């Protein structure tokens, strides 16, 4: 199974990589338990920064599509096929869309929404720092 990325595409490289790996899982080209190339190997083969590949792998692990087993390497998650259809980014977009629409219906202005969103994000950041 070959990964193909286009460096001219508007889609971020790590997103392309994530999608390609998910497509491979859904197509059955890689099966649960199969080993995946290391971050270094994939970064070198695609001539990408290893941080780009690391980010893709981190997000795939968050989505339970892959799992890292320390020095033993990275493997396809046992539930990868069902987890591939869960798109966290899409869920965030949909949820925010719904919430913003409700605020607008209630008469809240866009600038008030932006200020409130910013305050919430900053307060989360402060809690995180503490």
């Amino acid at each position, binding site marked *: 199974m070959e*990964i193909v990325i286009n460096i001219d595409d508007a889609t971020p490289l790590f997103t392309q990589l994530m999608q390609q790996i998910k497509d491979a899982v859904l197509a059955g080209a890689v099966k649960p338990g199969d080993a995946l*190339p290391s971050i270094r190997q994939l970064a070198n083969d695609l001539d990408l920064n290893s941080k780009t590949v690391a980010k893709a792998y981190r997000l795939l692990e968050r989505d339970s599509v892959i799992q890292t087993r320390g020095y033993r390497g990275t493997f396809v998650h046992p539930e990868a096929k069902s987890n591939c259809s869960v798109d966290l980014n899409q869920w965030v977009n949909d949820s925010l869309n719904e919430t913003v629409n409700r605020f607008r219906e209630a008469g809240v202005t866009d600038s008030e929404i932006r200020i409130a969103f910013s305050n919430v994000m900053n307060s989360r950041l402060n809690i995180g720092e503490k």
Partner: protein
Amino acid sequence: MFEQTVTLIVFTFQVLFLSYLVPLKTSQRLDFLYKNYSPEEYPKLYTRPIDYYHKQLWIYRFVNQIILLCGLVLIAIGIILSVDLTGKLFKLMPIAFGMIEMIPLVWLERMECNQYSLMRQLNQEKRRTAELKVRRFFDYISPSQFALLPASFLAAQLMQAFLRDFDYSWGSKLLTSSLILLVANIFLSLVMLKKLYGKKRNPYQDKKDRSQEIEVSIHAIVYICVAMNLFYMMIPLSNYYQLNSYEPLMSSLYFQVITFASIWNRLKRLRLDEINFDVYRNDISAITNK
């Protein structure tokens, strides 16, 4: 007298192999490449005008001919003047001459590195591909073949330690040679890992060709390490059994073995007619990694 004759014969083989046969095969390979894969049809293969490549090939042939001539003169001196080639003065001659013979090969390797570097700079491809498959070391060499490396290393270390009374005191010959051997083996092992997991030097190379090149390189490095370890074992052994007169012969054989394991093996196994040159065309439909 016997050692003198045998050393002369082996040194003659060294001169003919490294300064005649290897450059001949390399030149023929490059000639074939330039004649059958023109810059018009395969523009991505050439980063400079074709004249540059012809000129470099001419220089390579010329330098090898000079070295060959020097080698033949040395052999003639050995035969005509009956110079003792096994004596202390000529002990290092096969190694020294072998290093001179390596110069054109090192130069060629450097040219290849520059070529790939330019290819990467000029590469306009927006699509990048990689296999979603782990590259494992033992996919390219069998464990039994690889086992020769640590086995020969341990044998060399044990032999040296035994012959030098296990004297690992600071500054001792044993410690120095053990460390040199260890560092050399580690260095070559790292080169192997770089070949396996490192960046693709040639940005257009077909994945099958790359896999083949990795396999050939790993085999070559393992055999070079084994030869090096055995050589390190033979030298103190020859000293111990007072066979020092055979040292020039062993040095010469060592150079021939490492050249055979590396360059000759590469020339024979990476056949030009099996390489996918379509990747160097400009035609997009022809650029497929098969």
